[in-house]
């Protein structure tokens, strides 16, 4: 297209104009500095609000300081305020384009926001700054897979494998890509992944799917079993950057999660500390008090357990879990009347509370109130048909009344799974058979119970079984 120049524009002025236009274009192409986020913190937990406000003030005082803006993003990210964190990181990034952290964090939060394309772009930018950052490389490959960009995801995983051929995460990712594309190689790749990380649950699951597709059902079943045992286990990927963000969380829920995790590892004192931190963050946290009843009880601190119970029901009188936990604690203190009352309270709040019905049934049985006990065991089972202890207690109770077929039916339900409780359950079932006169089945069950008791190193149980087997043998000889 021919451009008509104004009459006053000579060749020189034309060139000058072009240069000016280029300068203008360059100036225009530079995006304005993103604003700090607008925050609405009215209903936030006070400790969380204080943490965010403090970071926000620091960023406002130094609005051109990349670290301050980025720090605000990190605090916001720690509390999953993705949109506000995004604004902060974008500003930090605009102020310091060479800092790996900001595009990396942006990549992470865009994924959480369901923006795979933006996540990919940010992670690629981060990797230009630090091409070797493993968590970023893994995240990028994963984002590509999430976005359905199978070719690009495959290349990203291949790149990871080029630098570390035994990287189970990369092998698993590549296997998923191949499986999604319907490629037979998926099988071998996923087999390599589980060879590298034998307890990588998700990889076993993916491998099982590939095996089923290949018609190898039996092998698939084996891998599904491993998956069931290691569902959430994955090769560790240490990410200092994300750890730094998580450490900024000041919410009660975060501390409770942390405490629950510590408790499951048997680290009771630390679990108590975490729950105390939760209460500092939110003194009205019923859940923290409820968990503390159990924690103090397990730690042998009865006065504090009682105090935690009182605090929990003062805040939430209908908390079934508070009453239930207190019932368990009271029972451990041999305060059976208090325990029964607490379980009754739990049932009042939640009539479907199977464990409370079961425990109340047990207490009533010990008081000789057999009919009431049976009713509660049955209520427990109607609310949770798989409640093993209720099957066990009901079976016992029925056996005591010589209601053999019913007792056997209940006890059979207790031996469907294989764990450390199974030998005892098999032994109980065998005993009922023996008392009902079916010695052959009893002997067979005792044998199975003994084998399993040995496997679980339960010496006293083995000794009991041996005694019973000897009695059976003697009576058999007499006959």
């Amino acid at each position, binding site marked *: 297209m021919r451009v008509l120049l104004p009459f006053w524009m000579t060749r020189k002025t034309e060139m000058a104009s072009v240069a000016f236009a280029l300068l203008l274009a360059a100036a225009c192409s530079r995006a304005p500095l993103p604003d700090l986020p607008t925050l609405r913190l009215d209903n*936030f937990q006070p400790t969380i609000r204080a943490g965010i406000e403090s970071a926000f003030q620091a960023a406002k005082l130094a609005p051109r300081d990349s670290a301050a803006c980025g720090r605000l993003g990190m605090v916001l990210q720690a509390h*999953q*305020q993705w949109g506000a964190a995004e604004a902060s990181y974008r500003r930090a990034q605009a102020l310091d384009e060479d800092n790996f952290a900001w595009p990396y964090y942006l990549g992470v939060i865009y994924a959480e*926001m369901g923006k795979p394309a933006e996540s990919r772009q940010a992670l690629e930018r981060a990797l230009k700054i630090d091409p070797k950052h493993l968590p970023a490389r893994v995240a990028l490959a994963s984002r590509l897979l*999430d976005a*359905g960009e199978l070719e690009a995801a495959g290349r990203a995983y291949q790149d990871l494998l080029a630098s570390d051929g035994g990287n189970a995460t990369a092998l698993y990712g590549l296997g998923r890509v191949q499986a999604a594309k319907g490629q037979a190689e998926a099988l071998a790749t996923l087999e390599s992944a589980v060879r590298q990380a034998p307890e990588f649950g998700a990889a076993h699951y993916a491998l099982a799917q590939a095996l089923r597709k290949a018609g190898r059902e039996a092998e698939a079943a084996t891998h599904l079993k491993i998956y069931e045992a290691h569902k959430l286990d994955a090769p560790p990927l240490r990410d200092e950057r994300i750890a730094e963000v998580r450490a900024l969380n000041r*919410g009660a829920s975060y501390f409770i999660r942390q405490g629950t995790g510590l408790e499951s590892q048997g680290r009771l004192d630390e679990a108590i500390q975490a729950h105390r931190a939760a209460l500092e963050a939110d003194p*009205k946290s019923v859940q923290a008090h409820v968990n503390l009843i159990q924690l103090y009880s397990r730690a042998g601190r009865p006065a504090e357990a009682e105090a935690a119970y009182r605090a929990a029901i003062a805040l939430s009188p209908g908390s079934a879990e508070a009453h239930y936990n207190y019932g368990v604690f009271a029972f451990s203190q041999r305060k059976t009347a208090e325990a029964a009352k607490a379980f009754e309270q739990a049932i009042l709040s939640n009539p479907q509370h199977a464990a409370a019905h079961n425990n109340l049934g047990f207490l009533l049985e010990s008081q000789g109130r057999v009919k009431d006990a049976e009713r509660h065991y049955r209520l427990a089972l109607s*609310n949770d048909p798989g409640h093993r202890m209720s099957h066990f207690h009901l079976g016992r109770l029925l056996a005591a009344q010589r209601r053999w077929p019913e007792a056997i039916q209940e006890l059979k339900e207790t031996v469907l799974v294989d764990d450390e409780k199974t030998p005892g359950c098999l032994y109980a079932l065998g005993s009922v058979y023996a008392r009902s006169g079916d010695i052959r089945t009893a002997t067979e069950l005792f044998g199975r119970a003994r084998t399993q008791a040995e496997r679980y190193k339960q010496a006293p149980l083995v000794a009991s079984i041996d005694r019973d087997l000897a009695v059976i043998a003697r009576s058999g000889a007499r006959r």
Partner: protein
Amino acid sequence: MKRGCLVGALLLLCSCATPRPASTPIFEEAAAVSGLTFVHDPQLSGEFHMPEIMGAGVALIDYDNDGDLDVYLIQGKGKSGNRLFRNDLIPSGRLHFTDVTQAAGVGLAAYGMGVATGDYDNDGYTDLYITNFGPNVLFHNNGNGAFTDVTVKAGVGDARWSTSAAFLDYDRDGDLDLFVLNYIDFTVTNNKACFAPSGERDYCTPKAYNPVNATLYRNEGNGRFKDVSAASGITAARGPGLGVTITDANEDGWPDLFVANDTAANLLWINQKDGTFQEQGLASGVAYSEDGLAKAGMGVAAGDYDNDGDEDLFVVNLTREGATLFRRDGPLLFQDASLATGLRPTTFSYTGFGAGWLDYDNDGFLDLFIANGAVTIIEQLRGKPYPFQQANLLLRNEGGKKFSDVSSSAGPALQLEEVSRGAAFGDLDNDGDTDIVVANNNGPIRLLLNQVGNNKPSLLVQGVPLNSRVGLVRKGLPILWRRAQSAYSYLSASDPRVLFASGGVGAEELLVEWPDGYQERFPVKAGVRAVTLKRGAGKGDAGR
């Protein structure tokens, strides 16, 4: 300099802003104009009681057998109760709804959740089963425009928190049995305080409570049902159940049940043909998505999206999980096809509830509609009175290979951002394409009338009982299989009539697999838009 930028931007904008040709929206929202006026009221307590955020459902039911679909809507805690709207299309010829709740006697005021439809007493009139947070209710359709509450006599008043339910003849004895999903053991007294990551009060996830097992009622044939949950084996596994549909996953002709659990493994109950079921979700590949994660399954739908003759399973999940499509590759052999079909990235940002297969454009391939709405505070909506709104999705099936998001071009109805839950599917204006009714939580009902489907011919098949399978034999093309089903989506019941899109093209005959396994062939006359099939009138096979 700023001015320069502005001029540049304007020029750029002009060059890009070529006017798009005006086109017909795919769906037009027509609830209010057609008299379907209803607002769901969860009666928010301020205490974040979980049932507030979970309801409610909708049923499309021709309760008066006049040939058009009426609408039954489930209310929350409000005193106004559930409503029945009669469709006056027949005989008036105009789509208009009249509230007949009072005359019909179905204005139940409970804490409503969902609804299932089926003619449990084989009297020719469709009955209603209502699930509640509290005792459920069975309404018998008297056939004279009124219903009777027969819950006590029938013995189906499960008092737990029930969600979706399905009628099916699992024992093939000729009458419909009833499967009811229960969710969790939440009670108002035991309401737990849960919090958003910001520390604000928010709704709990189901993990804060214990899951409750489902109930299976066997129809005894005398107006009574018997709870056979334990005897049938369906109490062997449980989860917080939200969605259920009927399918035949092992291809033996007997109905199986697929259950979506919220934050727990999905369950696939395989009918053992002896009154019992065995759970085979894990072994068949539908318990988890391909990454081995248990997701927050809500609505479900079974349908043959790739026209290969078997039913694939679709589940919608929580935001940042993406929906899951389990493609069936053989008996009890499913593969997660969410990535390969592009469904995962498209649905990643949404919390899906109602979901259904429908061929909105009548091209012979089943498309997807998903009703969305969050369950926990959406950060960007903080400060709004009910910060859970999301837009719904319409996904076009591209030849059985991929799905593309056509929501943005589907018309204003698909741009609404609401808290959608139930969705029911059926041809409400009898124009030969599928319409949708969307039940919003704490919001108005929406009627999405399909504006494009009837550009192509279709064939409506009536007279086949629930869960029959119907195949359309087409010249030179694979048989198109569809199921007469009402139980799918979330808390809702859809029109069980089978609508074959592209039905008129090359149609030769219909194959029917009746629920008892009997197979029959019926000829199809060219140009016919609707047929009513009668058992025995076709050419029979022994069947399965």
